[in-house]
């Protein structure tokens, strides 16, 4: 019963069409950024390491390499500030969390591409 009430409350915060992507995908995350009065879109590109949480609290982690340093950003999936998530490339992965990529550098971070039929 209480879970149904929580779902009811969260419904107003959920996106009608949540972005579709999988763990291991290389994605472009379009974030709305407010600078004073003007709004602009910032794009963060990287590999989705995992998704966590459920309902309106669902988050996903994107990792990329910036100037030789690994950078990870965690986004709320249903946040109105996430304009869209574009899938650039899908990969074959065998686990839900790709934390092993953190220990790898260079060529070893490559993932095998998955061809969508």
């Amino acid at each position: 019963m209480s879970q149904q009430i929580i779902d009811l409350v969260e419904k107003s915060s959920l996106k009608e069409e949540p972005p579709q992507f999988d763990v291991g995908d290389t994605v472009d995350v379009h974030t709305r950024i407010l600078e004073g009065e003007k709004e602009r879109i910032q794009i963060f590109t990287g590999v989705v390491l995992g998704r966590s949480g459920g309902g309106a609290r669902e988050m996903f982690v994107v990792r990329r390499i910036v100037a030789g340093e690994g950078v990870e950003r965690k986004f709320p999936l249903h946040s109105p500030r996430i304009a869209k998530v574009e899938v650039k490339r899908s990969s074959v992965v065998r686990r839900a969390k790709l934390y092993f990529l953190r220990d790898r550098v260079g060529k070893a971070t490559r993932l095998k591409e998955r061809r969508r039929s």
Partner: protein
Amino acid sequence: MLKGILGRKVGMTQIFDETGRAIPVTIIQAGPCCVLQLKTVERDGYEAVQLGYQDKPRRLARRSERGHVAKIGGKNSSDRPKANCEPQRVVREFRGSVEGCEVGQKLGVEVLENVVSVDVVGVSKGRGFAGVMKRHNFSGQRATHGVKKVHRHAGGTGCSASPSRLFKGRRMGGQYGAARITSRNLKVVRVDAENGLLLVKGAVPGPNGGVLVVQETNRLG
């Protein structure tokens, strides 16, 4: 007009506001509440509205509880107006003017419409006999450097030969939790009268399912 209601804590989640910020909210299932009795200065020496929340099966209610909400006869029955409802599980009083309230009236969460912030009273989760680290946020002692078996102890508690006693109020281990706690000045995020739900920003005391008293805050500013 009464600006308070009884309810139960459902749980916490987050919602996004119009700027896209995530707000942590506690969901409270509040009301419907029945006005059981009005306390007046002439009769009781103070003014208050007594609310009942959630029906209790008649077979579980005592005769006094049944007689409190409805006329059941008997030689000592009083003439005061009765709410004529089922016996109530939770009965609480709200101090303040009885104006605009009458016995038997049903109140929903809409009484908190246009209220900016509320005080929420609940019974906190019981933690039993807790040590000083959990109960008073003491730091404990070191893990190494000769500390033996006292890692979560408080350390010294008093002075020396003078005064050769403990000062009153020394913080020690003991019963922690299961006490009445008031969280004051919580912002009301949403009042959903249709579903009888109230969303307040932040945490409220007690476990999910615990009984809560919600009232317009008495804190100024």
